[in-house]
């Protein structure tokens, strides 16, 4: 009887030991900086400790828990390196050590960003398609943008009064696409100003913007055939300091009293100070920004305001270049896709299915 019991116990023990597994595998579809660890041990374990044992670094405890089975992703590793792991399971009166190792490998695609890629391809594909259609002679309609139509009026007024035009390309550096969009508007405005022989003043907050703005204005004067009228000192650097920059511009507005002010680009807390001072001087004012939270201030104090995407559409609108107009049609397609996705997402969420959300959010989490 005793012999049978002992053999049974032995068999159970062997069975339990056989069930203990610990594996390490390179995480799929990533940048080769993580390894997935999976373990399954006897449910009798009290504590589980997982360590990474590197040759040149001290032993590092990655996880301590009491789960007999589970998985863990070891992140922030070096790609193409071999990593060794040790799992230590503590039982009532014994402990068990298991080892595993794996090599990190960088893959050629982030699977988590698939949703993001598909959306991007769809929007970019539509833009390219419409650009191509425009190249083949298809005409596209663009609605009236009052803020851009006012440009002529503003230049005309400045010319009549013999006063300069003030153009502020935002407070962001050149790495902000709003600044680039602003420079494209500046290019058109400077050309018209050169034709009318009206002075244009462009204060810049960042040196990179300064050098780009100088080039843009110079080329515009050259294109208008009025390079002799170009004054390089009218495009100048003021200061990197946010409110120092505002003080400088306010000073220009109060002293030189420009007939037209343009605030195009990225603006923050200073927007109202700029636009309200301009309002007080009686200038005709046009603003444009994609900073939605500054729009109310501009709407209150300016004669015309370009809202969000209108700033990016300005270049196409002003140049009437069919290729650029075609790209705007592509935006509209993108909007349609997003509207459909929102409706679909809402319906799926009501039905308690979050697959779509997770698929798209893969890009974030």
């Amino acid at each position, binding site marked *: 009887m005793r012999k049978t019991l002992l053999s049974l116990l032995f068999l159970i023990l062997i069975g339990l030991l056989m069930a203990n597994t610990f594996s390490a595998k390179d995480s799929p579809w990533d940048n080769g900086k993580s390894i997935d660890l999976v373990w399954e041990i006897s449910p009798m374990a009290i504590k589980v400790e997982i360590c990474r044992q590197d040759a040149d670094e001290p032993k590092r405890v990655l996880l301590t828990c009491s789960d007999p089975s589970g998985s863990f992703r070891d*992140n*922030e590793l070096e790609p193409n390196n071999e990593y060794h792991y040790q799992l230590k399971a503590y039982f009532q009166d014994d402990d068990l050590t298991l080892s595993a190792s794996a090599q990190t490998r960088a893959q050629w695609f982030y699977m988590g960003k698939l949703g993001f890629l598909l959306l991007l391809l769809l929007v970019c594909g539509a833009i390219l398609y419409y650009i191509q259609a425009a190249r083949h002679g298809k005409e596209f309609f663009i609605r009236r943008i009052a803020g851009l139509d006012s440009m002529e009026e503003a230049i005309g007024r400045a010319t009549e009064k013999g006063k300069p035009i003030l153009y502020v390309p935002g*407070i*962001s*550096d050149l*790495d*902000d696409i709003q600044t680039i969009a602003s420079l494209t508007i500046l290019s058109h405005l400077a050309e018209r100003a050169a034709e009318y022989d009206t002075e244009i003043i462009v204060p810049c907050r960042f040196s990179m913007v300064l050098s780009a703005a100088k080039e843009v204005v110079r080329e515009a004067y050259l294109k208008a055939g009025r390079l002799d009228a170009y004054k390089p000192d009218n495009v100048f650097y003021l200061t*990197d*300091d*946010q*409110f*120092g920059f505002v003080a400088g511009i306010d000073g220009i507005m109060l002293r030189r009293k420009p007939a037209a002010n343009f605030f195009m680009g*990225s603006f*923050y*807390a*200073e*927007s*109202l100070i700029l636009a309200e001072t301009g309002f*007080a001087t009686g200038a005709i004012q046009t603003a444009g920004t994609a*900073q*939605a*939270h*500054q729009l109310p*201030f501009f709407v209150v104090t300016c004669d015309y305001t370009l809202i969000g995407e209108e700033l990016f559409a300005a270049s196409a609108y002003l140049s009437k270049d069919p290729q650029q107009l075609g790209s705007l049609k592509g935006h509209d397609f993108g909007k349609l896709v997003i509207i459909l996705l929102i409706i679909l997402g809402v319906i799926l969420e009501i039905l308690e299915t979050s697959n779509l959300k997770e698929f798209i*959010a893969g890009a*974030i*989490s």
Partner: protein
Amino acid sequence: MKISVLAERRIIYLVLLIAVALPLLFPIGWKTEVSGYTQMAYDLIENTPENKVVIISFDYDPSTMTELQPMGEAMIEHAFKRDQKIIATALWPMGVQMAEQAFEKVLRDYPDKKRGLDYVNLGYKVGGMVTIQAMGRDLKEVYPNDTRNTPYDQIPLLANTRRLKDVAWVSSLSSGVPGLKEWMMVARDSYNVPVTGGCTAVSAPGFFPYVNEQRQLTGLLGGLKAASEYESLIGRLGSATTKMDAQSVAHLLILVFIALGNIKVFVAKKKKTTKTKAFIIKRRKSND
């Protein structure tokens, strides 16, 4: 009596000046209710275990310090209370001094906190978002030494902090670009590090969409009111709490101005209608 637009504006400015100055000179001591956004930011810091390394980025300059400096001080104090280790950085040149001043003020109540052990000021780096991306790969590469020229490797609190991923949370106190948005786009979206922060009241509505289910921002302190709420949460009677009285009075005054503006337009409209009516009656009479 007809008042010109310029005179009108000057009267508004003068009345506002008096209304703001009085509560600053004679504090009233009104209480504020804590909003969900502030609570969320507070909870993030409160629930982070002690000894964790955190980043507070001072992305502003003295112009906005009225609103942002109290937030910086309150967050430093909260992190010190929770025994967290603070790395101060700045994406704006003047942010370095702002950080120094904030530490100096909080250290008066926490004299046992030591530079290098409990906090460090790594200073300003040009480049904005690109700098944060570089910090994601290697902090030492971006900041080879701190503002006192101590090499990165010789700063004890940075011993186990090699990249952005190693910090528990990031808080950006931001008054423009580069700032909170850039931190969120890189630290949160690319490296999954919780990001919170503060901004001026006029910029706050633009950041609210990011306090969402994805937790792109874990809470937000928008303006002086949020700063005073945070102070009340950590039990600190800071400058935001005292300034809130003045802000409340200013807001009330703005409401009065709005009412006056409407009355003015209403009266003007009525006068115009009466004049038009009188004109029509006169014409009719002359026609008759």
